[in-house]
């Protein structure tokens, strides 16, 4: 009925500062009632090298969870977060994951594109083009408080196409 380790023979406790509580560490969905939001940001990949250029088309993100949680995926192209600030368009995608009675692994397809605006009014989106640049990184973060259960960031795959590769460097 229960695993042989269920009674946790080794429990880490931590003592509060500026407070009088002894906490069980790594227990429960929040820190004594205060929510926290797990986050992972990958290093950038540059499939075409340091002077080449790629079209990045899609991210496939695999997640395992039993808790219900909302994740946000933010593409970072050539060091710029496309989150609607600092002159970027908001290309963040929300993944609403329902709770599950057991650990469930799901893969989510996140298209990568940027808007093309009407050249006259500059605000009307007339088309979208795949992201194009040198380096792409990925930020995945929970945006709702965690609940009981587990959450794993498993894997991400970026699909791309090289527009032109890096130029060979002349050496003496």
């Amino acid at each position, binding site marked *: 009925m229960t695993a042989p380790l269920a009674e946790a023979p080794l*429990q880490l*406790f931590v*003592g509060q500062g500026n407070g009088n*509580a002894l906490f069980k560490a790594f*227990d429960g969905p929040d820190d004594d009632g205060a929510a926290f939001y797990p986050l992972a940001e990958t290093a950038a990949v540059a499939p075409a090298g340091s002077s080449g250029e790629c079209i990045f088309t899609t991210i496939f993100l695999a997640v395992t969870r039993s808790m219900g949680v909302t994740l946000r995926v933010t593409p970072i192209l050539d060091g710029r977060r496309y989150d609607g600030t600092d002159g970027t368009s908001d290309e963040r995608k929300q993944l609403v994951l329902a709770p599950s009675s057991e650990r469930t692994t799901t893969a989510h397809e996140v298209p990568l594109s940027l808007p093309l605006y009407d050249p006259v009014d500059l605000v009307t989106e007339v088309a979208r083009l795949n992201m194009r640049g040198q380096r792409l990184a990925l930020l995945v973060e929970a945006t709702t408080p965690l609940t009981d259960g587990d959450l794993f*960031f498993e894997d991400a795959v970026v699909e791309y196409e090289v527009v032109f590769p890096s130029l060979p460097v002349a050496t003496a």
Partner: protein
Amino acid sequence: MPDRPTVRLPFGAGLNRSAGPYVVPPGVPRTLRDVLVEEGRVEARKGLTTAVEITLQNAGYAAQDIIHVMAFRAAGRGMLVAADYPGAGSGPNGIEFWRMSVTGFTPVYVGLMPSPTTPPKPGVTRIFGTEVWSRLFYAQDEPEIAERRTTRTINTSFVVSDLTANLDGAGVAPVKFRGVCRYLDYLIGWGFGSASDADRPEAIRVSLPNDPLTFRPTHYWLAGPRSEPVLNCVPGPGFVWALKETETYILRGTNSRNFTIELLDPRFGLAGSHLAVQVEGELFGWSRQGPRVWSGGASVDLGLPLDLGGPDPEDLVASGEAAYGWAEYDAVRRLVIFAFPNRDLGKTRAYCLSRRDPSNPRWSYIEWQRALMSAGTIYAVASGAPNGYPDQTPLAEVGGEVLVSWNNVSAAGDEVVEIWLKVGAGAYNKVREVAVSGASQSETLHAADGVIAGALHTVALRYRRGSYIASGYAGTVTSGWGLTEIAQSVESITTASAPTAPGSPSQTDCRITTIGGKQYLSVKVGWTNTVGAGTTEVLTNDVNDAATATLADTVTVSGLGLTQASGWVGGWLTTGGVIYYVFVRHRLPTGELGPAVLAATVNPADGCEA
């Protein structure tokens, strides 16, 4: 069209913030916050739950800091040290010892460190503790000898006394070590010379073997110059690391005739006295240059991937001072944790080194939402049969489920409560095991546990500690366990044969859809759940008769007393001239249906304005 190429970004590679963007392997994370690194993936960490709250001397003054946590194996208890400071109310301004169960509950005041000339300092006062030969020893990690309290010892009866010794030939006097640790069956203490030459920050004393209360004046090491104090001594396999701020010594030997000391690492020591932990024969410490590992020789850098000299990750909580950080090993999660509490912000930045693959340690960050001043592992060891028993209060039926409640009588806190269920005249089955937690608890038994409608349910509870079961409770329960107090662990209830009707049924929304020039009307209905589980069925009919109505929607019950609504039902032609009736009813997980009640009467010809 050929498939496009892809590149993987596995999250489990651990942080690497120092390498250039074109040389790091694809997918090496730049930031991992509040996740633990596993094989090829990361897991969102779990949080913090309050085990106990300490009120100093049970006098109503909340402790200001919990400054030490450790196990007392000989007594089968956990121990903590709490501190209170001037200006924090009218508390005792002292340092107190508390014992508790190995699950962290039922704290009991044990005693205190004697009052010094100055009170403890908020966020600064630290304690070293160790267990040797069935005794605990506590030393105040205070560099100023005039402000340091006498080292205290606690036996298995929890009697607290001073550690004393005649170290200068002038008579027995209190010992004021700055820190203590266990090596073999010796007690090692550092930072104290003798009553007449007390301030010896470089001195490391060792007790007699198997007698941690007795110290000989000549049994000591001197670790380098006096100007740089010994900060910590950590026992390894057959030796002790003695760490200062910028160098590390190693003490070897098994008795006073072959004890030696030598300089092991001339460059690196600890940035704070509690920033070291031994794991599987290696010492993990946080030096002034960041994390390092000592494996027998000079230390090796571990901090390169963290790029500690570069900018911090965006939004990562500000670190507290390195001098007041701590290191601990979580054996369950294979994590070396270096934590730096920021007492002002009430948060803690921690650097976590995953040792799930010891040959490939990998880093992530934790940002605890509380300032954490200390850490310790407490070992739950089954140490005999439980003495107490769970005293059940009468069972209650809540929406077709059975609510089991009980008070924990004479529980030590490390027991497990077994919940056994018998339905009708059937046999008892153990349906649940939960850890004892607090003075009273409750659990809800569901259909999956065997709960059915319209049947007698008998619930029996007992404590178990490891493989030990309280006297009289052994074996399989038949009709309770037979003894007087055990009868208090058995209760019965007959569940209702069917659920009651949903409460406050009504129409909540309306819409008209135009298809092919014709208009169709749909509605939503709402209700308040009178069951805690199962489903709510929404039925429609063109006569006011629920018995012949057609199922139009099914909604999973979200909880007892909660308000819910259906999806769109209907799609009735507005020109059809027919009046429709919408009913709702509950269905229990066991299949039993409750009565249907009218939620809405809809005349599509009236439209949504009606």
